[in-house]
């Protein structure tokens, strides 16, 4: 310990002093370890609690969504867009060459095999987190017929890929699976 340096000590006590210093250092180290251990519960309490984690997956019934319609479901307190694509929307999406895309992905990569008409994406604009328009009847779907974010004008196409505006990425596809032809489990 620094404060003991002032202490004059005779040379014969050298060994004893080292041993004593060791005890002081050990005591202070233990105090330090204790302080770090105390910080653990104080910090982990901020992580999502068990009830929040329990809501991390939801089942959505999609049987009532007609082709051309979309709904917003709530997953982890965030909107998920579930759209039943019309054949012409699928065709429009497939007609776009990948080279024109900012974040190149095909529609097939963004849907599940056998359910290619179901486009399920997060309803969170990849620019700054606003919710794009386009799920409700008569809402502005933007120049590319998909979704349109009113905050800063990002426009998404019928496969919810970014085409214009400041957003860097396509609307994110969450993890999901079809548990039956009419029920999707998200998360």
């Amino acid at each position, binding site marked *: *310990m*620094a*404060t*003991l340096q002032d202490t004059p000590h005779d040379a014969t006590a050298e060994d004893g002093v080292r041993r004593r210093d060791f005890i002081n250092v050990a*005591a202070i180290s233990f*105090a330090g370890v204790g302080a770090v251990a105390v910080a*653990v*519960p*104080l910090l*982990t*309490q*901020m*992580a999502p*609690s*068990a*009830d*929040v984690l329990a809501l991390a997956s939801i089942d959505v019934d999609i049987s009532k969504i007609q082709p051309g319609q979309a709904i917003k479901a709530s997953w982890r307190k965030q909107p998920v867009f579930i759209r039943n694509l019309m054949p012409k929307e699928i065709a429009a999406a497939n007609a776009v060459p990948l080279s024109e895309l900012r974040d190149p992905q095909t529609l097939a990569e963004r849907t599940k095999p056998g359910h290619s008409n179901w486009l399920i994406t997060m309803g969170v604009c990849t620019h700054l987190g606003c919710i794009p328009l386009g799920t409700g009847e008569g809402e502005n779907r933007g120049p590319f017929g998909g979704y349109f974010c009113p905050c800063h004008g990002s426009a998404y196409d019928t496969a919810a890929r970014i085409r214009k505006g400041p957003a860097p990425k396509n609307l994110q596809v969450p993890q999901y699976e079809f548990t039956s032809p009419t029920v999707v489990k998200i998360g």
Partner: protein
Amino acid sequence: MSFGWAQEYQPKSGFMRWIDQRMPLPRLVYGAVGGGYPVPRNLNYFWNFGILSGLMLTVQIVTGIVLAMHYYATADGAFDSVEHIMRDVNAGWLLRYSHANGASFFFVAVYIHIFRGLYFGSYKAPRELVWMLGLVIYLLMMATAFMGYVLPWGQMSYWGAQVITGFFSAFPVVGEPLRIFLLGGYAPDQAALNRFFSLHYLLPFVIAGVVILHIWSLHIPGSGNPTGVDVKTEKDTLPFHPFYTAKDGFGVGVFLILYMGVTFFWPDYLGHADNYIPANPLATPAHIVPEWYFWPFYAILRSFTVDFILAAKLWGVLAMFSSILLLFFLPWLDTSPVRSGNYRPVFKRFFWLLVADVFVLGYVGGAEISPVNIALGQFASAYYFAHFLIILPLISKLERPLPLPNSISESVLHGEAEESAPYGLATSGPVTAE
């Protein structure tokens, strides 16, 4: 610092020098709790409890801030939010148990600290202000603890709030309107709960502020010591750091073992089962009691059962407030020039009688009402007031104190360090002097 030999702050690095020249905070800390604060060399373990109280205040503030991140101050949601903390929040049970038991251990430390002061005459000149600021801290603690106990909104929370705000209705004319004003309603409800939460969050920071004043006013005359003799020379003192930081470190360890032992293995022992029942304004628990640290005062309150000039309820409330307020006048009630109880044979006997009396009051305050308990409480309360207001002033006039040592170092040399602990309850550190 008043002692000429106090070590001056020497910055150890260029960085600290740079800071110190612009804002002498390192210098302040060094002079307050570092090598720059000379402390009498004969302090015993009872002098650990100031630091321990400070530690518990810190624990309460830190765990409290974290718990407030999960607590809802609503009459409908408060109880469930506490259980949510206990069940679903990560480490929530640990934080909540630490906070609930932390309050108890804060009071344990503070009560020992206060009785230390009573025995060793720490309230006497020139430390009257230290004592009075300490009492202000104690009053703020009581208010904070009471409001904190209301927050879980269990049966005891609710009925505690009802009963304690009921004190105010004892005052004639203004009493009832005052109670309704304090509660923001006719009974404890949303308004009361919300304001209690707000104040429960605020007051600990006020306490922290008064603690700084308490320490500041202590550092002008310097710490007292078990002989009560003033520090005369450098031989009488040791620098706070490393000597008393080391001693306090050990004290903190022992105290934490007790605190954590209760928190982990008897977490509900100091609480009350009824507070795990959600508040119900239509049903009173069979046996309403406050937390243990209020029991002596609750006993005084309940001891007044006869209307004599004033209503019994008003007598009880006045006596309960007076029992704390009279401590502010202690420096002028005890006029003996000798500080330490070690050199006051008569005072010493009455001091231990007071300790026993407070334990009796504590027992009565927590026990169910019965004729025997009421009689016991009345007798013990009468002694409490008689002790401070009648006996103590008389002792200071009549008692012949024992001869004091010439200096602290002399007392240490003569092995009086052993004697300096009250009735050998503790010994001071291994002070060796030739």
